[in-house]
């Protein structure tokens, strides 16, 4: 077991000016499950591969425990990796696949067999040990890939989108299995995914990356409740947060007929670069249905109602058309999402009045995108 430390780790691909990973500083505690998440091309996989030693580190350091592994070959790092396409050795049986690392390390045969069988039992693979990967289903292959990592008993597990080749149902199942397995084994794990639901459900902590830059690290709750900037706010959470650019006047954020009160500290934190504007974010579930004329209430024209049984989501547009495009959400430009009572959903084409619940608005500087104190 060991901690993992990225110290200003940078990777620039040859022939490119912008680093794929730019001065990443990140610490993963011993036994922690850290999820690297971000849109495609954000550098999350590159970060993981740098830790695995499959990608050069152009500057900075990477440490496993107290050991500097920046220039250490992958084979000497004592890590195990699960690949997106599993990368099982097609000419070996399941047992040989799982025992390959031990065989290379020169472990006695009897001990290899014992450890492979133990891992197979944990993963429910015992009856498939003599099969070739070709004869397994996708889920089974995924478990063999996990088994290959477990058998090693490494210092760190690295997982590169291990669930993305599974169908939706199996993915949810395996998600919980991996998370509980990791808790049981207590091995430090770095897990890469582009799926924020996976990130929220599995990780002890989440690190969000964008364009090679670390945006924020924190527990799922922190990420959800206090996103550090507009990007994290829009990325974490499903459906995504509504974000709108509002004009600040009279201690309020104003957009058309909508006036949402701001606190003193928020207004004090605004700078000249913000040009009297502020970005306001509110999650779909932070909206309450209100009545016309209430302080801070605004009208939405309902385009679509999504009923999920436990929830109902209204997709709509600000009724004030001239300012509608100032608001965006996960549903797209000029769209707004609100959660409403599933027992009494509005109809398509209705006009409803909603209001941001007090204290649940997120405020960001419109110049820097950074979170402002509320």
């Amino acid at each position: 077991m060991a901690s993992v430390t990225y110290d200003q780790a940078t990777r620039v691909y040859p022939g490119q000016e912008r680093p794929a990973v730019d001065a990443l500083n990140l610490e993963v505690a011993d036994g922690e499950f850290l999820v690297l998440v971000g849109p495609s091309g954000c550098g999350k996989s590159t970060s993981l591969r740098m830790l695995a030693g499959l990608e050069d580190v152009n500057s900075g350091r990477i440490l496993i425990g107290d050991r500097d592994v920046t220039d250490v070959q992958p084979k000497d790092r004592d890590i195990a990796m699960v690949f997106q396409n599993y990368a099982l050795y097609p000419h070996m049986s399941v047992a040989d696949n799982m025992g390959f690392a031990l065989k290379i390390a020169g472990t006695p045969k009897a001990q290899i067999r014992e450890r492979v069988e133990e891992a197979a039992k944990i993963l429910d693979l015992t009856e498939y040990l003599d099969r070739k990967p070709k004869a397994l289903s996708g889920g089974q292959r995924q478990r063999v890939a996990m088994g290959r990592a477990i058998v090693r008993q490494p210092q760190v597990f690295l997982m590169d989108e291990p669930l993305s080749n599974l169908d939706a149902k199996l993915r949810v199942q395996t998600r919980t299995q991996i998370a509980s397995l990791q808790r049981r084994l207590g091995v430090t794990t770095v897990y890469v995914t582009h799926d924020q639901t996976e990130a929220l459900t599995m990780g002890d902590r989440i690190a969000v990356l964008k364009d090679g830059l670390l945006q924020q690290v924190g527990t799922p709750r922190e990420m959800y409740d206090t996103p550090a900037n507009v990007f994290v706010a829009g990325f974490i959470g499903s459906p995504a947060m509504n974000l709108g650019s509002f004009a600040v006047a009279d201690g309020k954020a104003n957009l058309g007929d909508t006036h949402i009160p701001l606190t003193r500290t928020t207004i004090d934190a605004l700078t000249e670069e913000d040009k009297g504007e502020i970005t306001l974010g509110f999650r779909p579930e932070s909206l309450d249905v209100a009545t016309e004329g209430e302080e801070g209430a605004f009208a939405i024209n309902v385009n679509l109602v999504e009923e999920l049984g436990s929830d109902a989501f209204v997709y709509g547009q600000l009724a004030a058309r001239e300012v509608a495009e100032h608001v965006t959400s996960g549903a797209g430009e000029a769209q707004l999402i609100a959660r409403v009572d599933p027992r009494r959903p509005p109809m398509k084409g209705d006009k409803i009045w909603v209001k941001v619940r007090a204290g649940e608005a997120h405020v960001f500087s419109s110049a820097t995108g950074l979170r402002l104190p509320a």
Partner: protein
Amino acid sequence: MSVEATVPEVADVANRRTQRPAAATKFRSLVTNRIGSAVAVVIAVLWTIPTFGLLISSFRPEADIKSSGWWTFFSDPSFTLENYQEVLFGRASSGALATYFINSLVITVPATVIPLVLATMAAYAFSVLEWRGRDWVFVGVFALQIVPLQMALIPLLRLFSSSELLEPFPFLSVWVAHSIFALPLAVFLLHNFMSDVPKELVEAARVDGAGHVSVFLRIMLPLMAPAIASFAIFQFLWVWNDLLVGLTFTGANNAIQPLTARLAEMAGSRGQDWQLLTAGAFVSIILPLIVFLALQRYFVRGLLAGSVKG
């Protein structure tokens, strides 16, 4: 009755609609099964008849061969092993293929193994390892295939004629010549095959603790087996059947000449012993035949390998 009359009509329309594609597929399967098989059989027979005639001739006495066609064997059978006797162990001037058979074997096996060993390692270097200028060097190696073999004969001969290594290793020049002529194609083919192996597999092995030697021996070689086998067959047949390189680099040295060189001289200086060619041909065919039959499973798979993922 009237009800019955209308029902078939409706059924007919429905049938006609469904029957057209059905007929098409039926026709196609008929063509592929019956006609296709028949054509294949005819071609196979046409191709095999001369060889078959040669086989029969080889068992006929000299006088018969020189006076009548092989098909007369069926009306007037006369059987002898004299030709084989003469060819394999006969007097030195026209026979004694046995020693040349061994020579060919001594030439062919290393001339197959050496380029294969070098080419698999080179293919690994060109496909898995990453180094500056790799692609340019690879293009260079591939481009070497354009050089006609004949152009290299004289420079190589000059190189070897002044070499003292030929004294202890008389076969060295033939081995080297065959190996270097085979390498560009071998490197190219094996490189292409190796590039098809997903790179995650190599990465997984490296994370699992394997160095390049282990990756090469334990991952790449087993996966490459079909490709290696198919190239081995190609190279074996090529070297075994080669006359030009064998003749050039063994010079007039009878002790190291391959079977093919001997076969060409077998008819005698005035062609008087041409009846022996029949038996000689079959002696030289036998080994390639064994190799082909033993490895043909890989042969087919190796040619297809890479076209289908998995």
